[in-house]
């Protein structure tokens, strides 16, 4: 039984605790409240009210009224979750059953798995706030995120139905096309940082200012100013590609309601449908987190002290640790609100326009942008 002592139990316990905190404590609540925010913001934009009635159901426990907080309707995500669980779990007879059930799982799991390498805070209770601090960080994110396309392809193919099938081939070609510009637009950032590890990316930005806001370290050099131009181009291409990767408007052709009913999940109902839905939002959170880590300094708050491993168990260190985690997710939520704002503002692309934008414009600009960055790095000391 010697090897039982060799198993790093403490490490396993710590990483499970971090995983559970990240997934169930932060990401899934953000997912459900992003859905709520989407409905409220869209209502705001379209001059409606949106869901503003559902409260927390304390009337079940003998109170006279349901609990309403701040905005009203904050109980809506809970009601939605219960509804998804109680609906009929129907599998049509014409589908390919195994893959029909596998597809929603494959849509959800990669989105949650990419979060493992993202540093969502500095130290807290003597632990680094990242589930796995691997040295291939950004490559892992791209590799796992691209598995998400299998969920959509399998959903459309196994449904044995016309609209899901059309939606899924559109989705697959859209997602692989925009993966090119997504991958290329990250290269200038890697050129500047010189490391694939995402914790190191944040460390670089603490020392030299956030890539998108290079003055956050208190000084601005000519080199930083020149590099800011390709970084901005990179940021714009990365964000646009992220919209396409997560099938959000203006790139929501895989599920465009007016042409394809509901696209690849037309035949799905109840929790199977909900997993696609949640998976899409979880992928949005993962994408926004990558944007925050690469361009907006991750959990860093400018001009504020940073706690260390030693000080992270003192009260001040714990407060600072929580502040950093809050800062990270505040930035993520900011980008999510931008996603929502864009969705309810822009019309949808046509498929040939979408392919032209991805292959002819974004791909070429991203490629040229890499060599501009490389030239600035070589010429300006």
């Amino acid at each position, binding site marked *: 039984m010697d*090897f039982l002592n*060799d*198993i*790093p139990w403490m*490490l*396993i316990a710590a*990483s499970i605790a971090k*995983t559970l905190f990240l*997934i169930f404590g932060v990401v899934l609540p953000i997912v459900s409240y992003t859905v709520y925010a989407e409905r409220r913001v869209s209502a705001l934009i379209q001059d409606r009210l949106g869901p503003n009635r559902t409260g927390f159901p304390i009337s079940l426990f003998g109170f006279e009224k349901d609990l309403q907080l701040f905005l009203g309707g904050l109980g809506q995500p809970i009601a939605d979750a219960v509804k*998804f*669980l*109680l*609906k009929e779990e129907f599998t049509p*007879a*014409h589908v390919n059953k195994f893959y029909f059930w596998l597809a929603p799982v494959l849509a*959800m*799991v990669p989105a*949650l*798995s990419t*979060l*493992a390498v993202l540093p969502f805070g500095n130290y807290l209770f003597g632990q680094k706030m990242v*589930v*796995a601090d*691997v040295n291939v960080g950004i*490559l892992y994110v791209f590799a796992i995120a691209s598995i998400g396309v299998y969920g959509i392809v399998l959903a459309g*193919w196994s449904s*044995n*139905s*016309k609209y899901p*099938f*059309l939606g899924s*081939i559109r989705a697959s070609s859209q997602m692989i*096309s925009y*993966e*090119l510009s997504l*991958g290329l637009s990250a*290269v200038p950032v*890697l*050129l*500047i940082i*010189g*490391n*694939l590890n995402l914790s190191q990316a944040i460390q670089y930005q603490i020392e030299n200012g956030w890539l998108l806001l290079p003055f956050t370290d208190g000084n601005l050099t000519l080199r930083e100013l020149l590099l800011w131009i390709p970084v901005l181009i990179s940021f714009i291409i990365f964000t646009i590609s992220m919209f396409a990767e997560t099938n959000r408007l203006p790139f929501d052709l895989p599920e465009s309601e007016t042409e394809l*009913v509901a696209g690849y999940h*037309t*035949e799905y109902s*109840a*929790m199977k449908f*909900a997993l696609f839905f949640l998976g899409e939002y979880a992928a949005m959170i993962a994408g926004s987190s990558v944007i925050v880590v690469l361009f907006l300094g991750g959990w860093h708050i400018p001009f504020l002290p940073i706690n260390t491993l030693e000080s992270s168990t003192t009260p001040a260190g714990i407060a600072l640790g929580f502040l950093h985690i809050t800062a990270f997710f505040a930035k993520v939520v900011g980008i999510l609100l931008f996603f929502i704002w864009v969705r309810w503002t822009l019309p949808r692309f046509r*498929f*040939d326009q979408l*392919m*032209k934008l991805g*292959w002819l414009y974004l791909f070429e600009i991203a*490629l040229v942008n*890499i*060599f501009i960055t*490389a030239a600035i*790095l*070589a010429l300006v000391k």
Partner: protein
Amino acid sequence: MFLLCFMKSDYLPILLQVLVAIGFACSALLVSLLLGKATRRNATKDTAYECGMIADEGPQPRFSVKFYLVAMLFILFDLEIVFMYPWAVIYKDAILEYGASIFWSMFSFVGILTLGYVYAVKKGALDWKS
């Protein structure tokens, strides 16, 4: 022994996170399967969705060969990007140590691939209008 090596590596937490994610997805489906209201099936309910009509075509319609082309071009250019990552990581140090040769080597590599890209564009592989 292999298992022990793996357990001590940086990748164990990733495996645990993937397992938690799979567990969440599967248990959500299972709970829904157990709690969901079961109703009767009938022939209409089992047909594929078709805007209120009876489907007259097969379930999987023919689609444009362009989708295959896009997939093949994707593999080609995605490999190019994978080659760029290690180059990008060492670039800053290498340019100080070895000078501009690292810039020109990647420039020529991308140049050769760009020829293929221009050829594909000229052949109309990416033209979805025709």
